[in-house]
């Protein structure tokens, strides 16, 4: 039957691509469908320095390498498309891609990861791509010798703030607390950096400009006072939310909208597995996503056999 696969993987981040590598290398007919950028959040990362065996690599390069590796074993990949229908409850699972039709499989691995948390304040959406960004690697060099703000105080925010100093003349980190939720090395790097300063206990509460971003309002969360700040760009790294909206009525989620899986990475639906940042777990890293993808793939092979 046309468009019938053994396994369909939803999502092409490190979890989905790893599952693709393991499945197709085992001669399992595999299709990976990805809505956004291949590599997911990994491809937005300026430098990855904690992937074992690779001292330093750009997230984009690692994504391309993983994609090539999956394809070299025969994994089919359809990317940058929208899935409009999921029918996962029966033995044969059915997925509909907008404009491309139906795809069927015996098992499904959901690896839909997470997406940037937005501030959800006035002007943020209007200036996306015009001064507001969620990806330092992609947009950093538009801010050569310009002043920018990085919003956030976790590892990603601090590491990307340092990366952005190679372009920007000044980086101001705006963070909601008076301490950072990051590793010691990342905190030391930003606090000792001559181009970086801080506005703590604060957040950005509005974005303003005409053609592109010109200023923001910064709100002090202790006093409620709002002040205007002229700025050329704002990079937002305030965490990630699981991309599980399409699965809300299909598989069981916890209160944080993360997919609940058992020790075989299976959801509450037989033959539907999940892996990576979209599942309920504590640590969200490329290594943990890769590990989840491996386990989901091996269990899916056992399931279909």
């Amino acid at each position, binding site marked *: 039957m046309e468009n019938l696969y053994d396994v369909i993987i939803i999502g092409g981040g490190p979890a989905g691509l790893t599952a693709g590598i393991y499945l197709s290398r085992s001669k399992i007919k595999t299709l990976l469908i990805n809505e956004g*950028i291949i*590599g997911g959040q990994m491809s937005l990362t300026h430098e990855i320095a904690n992937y074992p065996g690779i001292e330093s690599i750009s*997230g984009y390069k690692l994504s391309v390498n993983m994609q090539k590796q999956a394809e070299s074993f025969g994994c089919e990949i359809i990317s940058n498309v*929208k899935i409009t229908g999921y029918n996962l409850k029966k033995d044969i699972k059915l997925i509909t891609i907008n404009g491309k039709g139906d795809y069927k499989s015996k098992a499904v691995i959901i690896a839909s990861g997470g997406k940037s948390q937005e501030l959800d304040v006035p002007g943020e959406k209007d200036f996306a791509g015009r*001064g507001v960004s969620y990806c330092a690697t992609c947009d950093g060099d*538009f801010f050569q010798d310009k002043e920018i703000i990085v919003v956030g105080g976790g590892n990603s925010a601090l590491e990307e703030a340092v990366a952005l100093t190679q372009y920007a003349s000044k980086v101001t980190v705006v963070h909601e607390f008076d301490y950072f939720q990051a590793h010691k090395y990342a905190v030391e790097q930003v606090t000792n950096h001559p181009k970086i300063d801080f506005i703590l206990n604060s957040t950005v509460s509005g974005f303003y400009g005409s053609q592109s971003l010109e200023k923001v309002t910064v709100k002090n969360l202790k006093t409620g006072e709002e002040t205007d700040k002229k700025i050329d760009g704002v990079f937002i790294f305030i965490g990630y939310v699981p991309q599980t909206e399409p699965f809300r009525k299909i598989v069981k989620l916890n209160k944080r909208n993360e997919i609940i899986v058992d020790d075989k990475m299976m959801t509450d639906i037989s033959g539907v597995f999940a892996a990576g940042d979209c599942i309920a777990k504590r640590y969200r890293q490329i290594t943990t996503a890769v590990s989840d993808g491996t386990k989901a793939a091996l269990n899916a092979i056992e399931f279909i056999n």
Partner: protein
Amino acid sequence: MTLQTNLDHIETENQYNDILSNNENVMICCGRMGPMCVPVYADMEKLRDEYPHVKFYDMLFDIPDAQVIRNLPECLGFMGLPFTVYYKKGKVVKAASSIQMRDQITAILDEQFS
């Protein structure tokens, strides 16, 4: 210098002007081989067969002649790659910055060039 895609490339301002004067419907994606750009080129490659009445081109963002796109009034304020520009009879009818999903591209192609 060109991008490593299977699209037809625009390398000079003259070539750009020729293309716009000789074709009614044109889509040009001006970018790099980066995470937000590559998916758009890949979609354009696939859309060529579905939209034979549209000409699809790319242009490397960093070559000097790409100023014809970088400096378009419609791209003023764009701070995300790629810059994707749609032309009808030589005039810009739509411009977008950063990644575009296949659906977003086809919506513009259908609206502007049907």
